[in-house]
């Protein structure tokens, strides 16, 4: 699992990365009450705002962590966005992206580096 400075995690399987937000980010946001997911099939570029999440406190964007194509979204979050708070690294995954260039992930943080980053 890799981590970004935008508090996302990525888990690569072949050329498909599953993406979610970290437990630290979920904790800071508070209980999620709304999520707007990207379209499956959408081609996105790194740093595009592709997901809107709203917590009890405020709205935030989730940025595409790299270039690619959205191949699946976690529809269960539409009716149950608090899954992101309850299981951010598991059932609270948000979308799967077909990665255009897997070498983009090489510069991302490992877990230890991310933990140091948020410390």
């Amino acid at each position, binding site marked *: 699992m890799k981590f970004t400075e935008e508090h996302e995690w990525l888990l690569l399987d072949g050329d498909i990365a599953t993406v979610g937000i970290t437990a630290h980010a979920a904790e800071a946001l*508070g*209980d999620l009450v709304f999520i*707007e997911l990207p379209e499956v099939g959408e081609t996105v570029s790194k740093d595009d705002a592709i997901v809107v999440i*709203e917590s009890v*406190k405020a709205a935030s964007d989730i940025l595409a962590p790299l270039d690619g194509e959205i191949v699946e979204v976690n529809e269960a979050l539409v009716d149950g966005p608090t899954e992101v708070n309850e299981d951010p690294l598991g059932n609270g995954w948000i979308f799967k992206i077909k990665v255009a260039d897997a070498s983009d992930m090489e510069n991302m943080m490992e877990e230890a580096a991310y933990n140091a980053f948020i410390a």
Partner: protein
Amino acid sequence: MTDLLKTALTELHQELGAKLVPFAGYEMPVQYPMGVLGEHNHTRTEAGLFDVSHMGQVILRPKNGTLRDAALALETLIPQDVADLEEDRQRYGFFTNDTGGILDDLMFANRGDHLFLVVNAACKDQDIAHMQAHLSDVCELTVITDRALIALQGPKAEAALETLIPGVAAMKFMDVLTASYNGAEFWISRSGYTGEDGYEISLPNSVAEDFTRALLNHEDVAPIGLGARDSLRLEGGLCLYGNDIDETTSPIEAALIWAIQKVRRTDGARAGGFPGAEQILEHITNGAERKRVGLRPDGRAPMRAGTVIFADETTTTPLGTVTSGGFGPTVGGPISMAYLTKSSAAKDTTVFAEVRGKRMPAIVCALPFTPANFKR
């Protein structure tokens, strides 16, 4: 950060794992480990304990010993019936300004030989100065600084408080009681700001932590932060001063006409005589051009404060603006309060709110969003 004020319970909040934030100059708990949604639901189904010690507590005592004279003096600043308020009863009111806007909202109680007022934290300095300037000929004004204020709200509040203070179960909504606990004097009202039955309790700072711990020892009682307080009051259709009411909103626009008793309206025995009376009484007679209403967004996206409302998907002239909005956990969806033009404020009207550049439909609805559970 500048020095934030603490309440008698700040250390307890920290011990309970609260996330503390600056609020109206105080360091206040916004949420506890249970989280905003859990705390909201706990208050609706069990009992929630809130520290509201940041609010202002003020006593008005008549200099001549006649309470009615203090009540009539306060009536020069607020459009409520104070003089006929019975002993040990409380009422909701608001200070108005010369243009008919609202300077602050408040609770006031007749406690026999004095009036007891609770005002908003962010407005209390100006409220106190306002009263000093206008009431000091008739009233001796005392600002209470040695007492905490806590609220216990929810369907289990009565049973929980009764175990510590026998007699409170017999109180009705807006009743006021003086009680004793371990020798300390408590001022209790059956009221609150969540839409639930419950109590607000003024108690000496010296016993506040012990008493709060005793309440929290009750299995149904959990501490609740300002985050859930906001979603609870929003579902309850209750105004947040500074958001839903302010110096530019008349009480009639704000749909608070119910809080202006007939005796203060045109043809009443003590009609007018408060700041902005001309404007406010004119609004009562002829209606206001805009009105505070409830909105139920179609879909799940919350429409928050500042969201602009339109009649359809294309017009550029707005109908109004959302003043409070978010997710209503008990409603199970997004809810908002907004000011809309008179012609668009009728129940079941479809309007469009611009959220992130998109016009999203919403339905005008009655307030509150969740039925009030007061003990009448």
